[in-house]
């Protein structure tokens, strides 16, 4: 079972190490991790996708809460959450299949962000599943290089993840 956690942390050096170190030390599996600054420059927000049963998840959240630099941990509800990931795929192409690749890009509402003689870079944003799907199709042409950001996520509607008092 996958869970997406939104974690607000103090924007200090070493915080990422503390969080990542906790996961490895306690034997929790990180599927993906993305981190960036928030509207408050003192606070960073991490989105961590973690796999494990309810017991593992409970421990992850409790252990994260014990870190002094962790301000808030929120387990985002799947149906109530917008999730996005960005990926870049460098795909081998030739005269014969270039247009076929572009069709796939259109269907997925992805973008060609770089065109070379023998390769293309496809940029795509979407859910983890969508990116997996386009990757599967592009693999047929020969993927030379992949980079993915990991999921970022936010509650739908008015609900927010805020530091609180």
């Amino acid at each position: 079972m996958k869970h997406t956690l939104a974690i607000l942390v103090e924007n200090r050096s070493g915080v990422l190490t503390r969080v990542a170190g906790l996961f490895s030390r306690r034997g929790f599996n990180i599927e993906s991790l993305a981190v960036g600054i928030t509207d408050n420059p003192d606070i960073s927000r991490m989105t961590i996708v973690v796999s494990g049963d309810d017991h593992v998840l409970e421990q992850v959240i409790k252990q994260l809460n014990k870190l002094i630099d962790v301000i808030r941990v929120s387990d985002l509800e799947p149906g109530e959450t917008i999730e996005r990931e960005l990926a870049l795929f460098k795909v081998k192409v030739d005269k014969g299949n270039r247009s076929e690749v572009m069709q796939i890009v259109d269907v997925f509402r992805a973008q060609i962000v770089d065109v070379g003689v023998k390769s293309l870079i496809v940029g795509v944003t979407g859910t983890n599943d969508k990116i997996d799907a386009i990757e599967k199709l592009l693999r047929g042409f020969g993927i030379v290089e992949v980079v993915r950001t990991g999921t970022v996520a936010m509650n739908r509607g008015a609900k927010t993840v805020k530091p609180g008092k």
Partner: protein
Amino acid sequence: MGKKTRMTGARALIECLYAEKVEVMFGYPGGVLLPIYDELYDADIDHILVRHEQAAAHAADGYARATGKVGVCLATSGPGATNLVTGIANAYMDSVPMVAITGQVPRPLIGNDAFQEANITGITLPITKHNYLVTDVNDLPWIIKEAFHIAFTGRQGPVLVDIPKDVTTDEFDFEYPDKVDLRGYKPVKTGHKMQIKRGAEAIIKARRPVIYIGGGIISSNASKELLELAEIINAPVTTTLMAKGAFPDSHPLCVGMPGMHGTKYANFAIQESDLLIAIGVRFDDRVTGKVDSFAPNARIIHIDIDPAEISKNVRVDIPIVGNARSILKMLVEFISELKKSKSTTTQWIKKVEKWKQQYPLKYLMGDTLKPQYIVEQIHELYPDSIIVTEVGQNQMWAAQYFKYSQPRTFISSGGLGTMGFGFPAAMGAKKGCPDKVVFDIAGDGSFQMNSQELATVVKNDIPVIVAILNNGFLGMVRQWQDLFFDKRYSFTSIDDSVDFVKLAEAYGALGLRVTKPDEVAPALKEAVDSGRPTVIDFVVEREENVSPMVPAGAAINEILDLEA
């Protein structure tokens, strides 16, 4: 807001320590600490110079456990800091409040593999409650304030502060903050009222309750409240290694230690109980044995300050998060309101009492000197002592055969199981409680891991008594080899004729040797009366086993008698 005064970082550190009311610290100087040590030279702090930094950390730990205050240790960068690591890990595992201060190379050199540089904040990340690298002298006051606050509140633990040398020489306008504001750290204090009520209801309904207590009773100073609870509900109390002294061993409701080397009756009581009231414990594997078979018939109430301990190892039916003392107070109040009939546990207590009669802790006394007898004699003569232990057989015998009556009088490395802990920790305990007789019940293996501290105790006149239960073996490992490895004593014999009497004398301590039972009491008296640091070499039965014992991986009622 106080007055701002211009000073260096080193001076400010001393002012911070004054503000935190630090009276004693244990340390060892070094290159990057020169500015700090220059300030310590005439500071009003009793600084004890150890002979190895590991001992500074253990001494601070022992001081903290004996006094209930925060222990403070200080070491230089690189090897000084890494030598603290075992002591910090030890304090972390046993939730001991400690502030470890380390020197660091000057900021421009950090990351350059400079002389005596080690990334100690990185190294101690998983073994500290929190740690800091001070990168600006203006941050020093709030960091020290936070460090003491974090170490002492919530689930207590060690905090490390790493201070680069050039930060200690920088000047700034010093002002000590009067409060901390940590948005990511708000430890729960009082328990949830409804949960406590649920706990009270479960307790009243229980027919076979057992109270299972740990170090949390001692760190929250809840012994009085615990006694009240035990008596009002008339339930047996089992005290883990970390809780020794939190509930008097002599009390009729006390069933001693649970788990691997616990009493049979404590283990039987847990296995048959219908309600386990766990307070300030973490269901360690040495207590639960095979976890699936632990307390199979019991609902579990778990009271703990650390939410992460709830349902970590065993499922809990009624969790109550908060300070044990305040929760116990409320719990007793609720129970008193709800309880109508008198004791409903009379039958249960009778049963437990019968087990107690049937399966007492025992050993065979022969012509040779038995380690258990020595521990009993120490209790007989000096029942109000602080007993510090090393790790292994000596530790178990000290837990089994001394009858503790007061909290903070049994000090032992529980979680990490650190050989070499006892002697420096005893030194720290004695510094904190100079009026108490302090024994380090030691093994010949463990003692040799930090025996260099004999120099420290002699030089600083810290008269602790090291009682070596000398069997010429790494006894606990030998015991396992005896039982599970066909007596193949692979590298556990340390019968290497170290003359511990001469060793003591070489350092200027008193050294005594005892080989017969009737010499035990006179030697103990001579040691205590001398008022000097003393090593007593008790030459004991070589292959005595700690009994009873639950083999690793077995259920705790599958407990074997091993007495020879």
